């Protein structure tokens, strides 16, 4: 990516899912916010959307704490991400 180039929506989603996957599919919301390079408001928005689409899930962890983990759909999305971007480019979308 060029320096200072804004990430597209799909790239942000890919980055969030990659961070979760790379942390063995269990990461606290605070850590995920830090690694995803988003403002708190944007983070809430994106995670809400990803949960709604069934790509990630928020699970209880050791009592009151919670962690984000990747669902099977989220893992598949990440696997097919590059192909999907190529598909969009092939059609000029």
């Amino acid at each position, binding site marked *: 990516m060029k320096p200072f180039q*804004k990430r597209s*929506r799909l790239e942000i989603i890919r980055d969030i899912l990659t961070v979760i996957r790379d942390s063995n599919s269990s990461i606290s919301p605070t850590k995920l916010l830090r690694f995803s390079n988003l403002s708190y408001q944007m983070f809430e928005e994106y995670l809400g959307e990803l949960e709604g689409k069934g790509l990630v899930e928020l699970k209880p962890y050791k009592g009151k704490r919670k962690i984000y983990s990747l669902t099977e759909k989220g893992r598949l999305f990440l696997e*097919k991400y590059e*192909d999907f971007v190529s598909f*969009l480019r092939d*059609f*000029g*979308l």
Partner: protein
Amino acid sequence: MDVAMTLGAFNATFSEEFINLASEAAASTSIPELVFSLIIYFLMATLALQIYREVSKIYSFMEYDGLKYFKNAFLFYGFANLFPATLTFALLLAKSSASATLYLLAVVLLPLFFLTGLSFLFAKVNLLSSIIWKLVEGVVRTKTRRTLFFLSVMLLVLVDGAVYLLVLAVAGNYLALGYKAFIFVLILLLIRSNMRSGEGTKTITHPYYLGLILIFTLSFLGNFSIIIEDNHELVGYALDFLTLIAYAIILKGVKKWSRILLG
């Protein structure tokens, strides 16, 4: 109730002008022409609806909004071809010269024209939304904003049509075509920008975007019919044939990517 009474009731409902319009429409084309048109419309509708079905499968997996507009565009293109197919079928029936079929044509003529126009409008708005989406996806995040975005694109398409008619009336055919050419170039630049956006410099291996460009090109070329005085029918057939090619290219690409993404 006998047939004569039923026709009498129809006569009371429809004005004579309306029936005349239907009989003129039926008389102005020959049966071979109608059969040919029926096949073409049916083929175009089938291809467009097949594209819609394949893209729907990919959309249900990736849920990318730009793709939602793309899939809806082909659903409306499917309808936009099914309605004229029905109209052509009604014209074929009216050719049998039975009074009842002429009344049937009078009933369906205007609604089908209206529905075809509406379907084409929605198809165009959805297709345009799908190629603009990448530019606005960072801003259009809520459901309300998505609705506003769609309505803005629709307004844009309607204003474009109004400006075209205004230029046509005030400045004549050639300037109106110049205006359409300008809009066409803007659309091509938008598609080019989509293909070049994002990370990396991966080259495009399969140019399926040509199908999309062909659809916009045909929409632009359609405007030339106002300055072509002869061979209207030939131009119409050529445009239909090229539309079929565009749909076939897109369907081939969508099927290939559907196999890769969902297989």
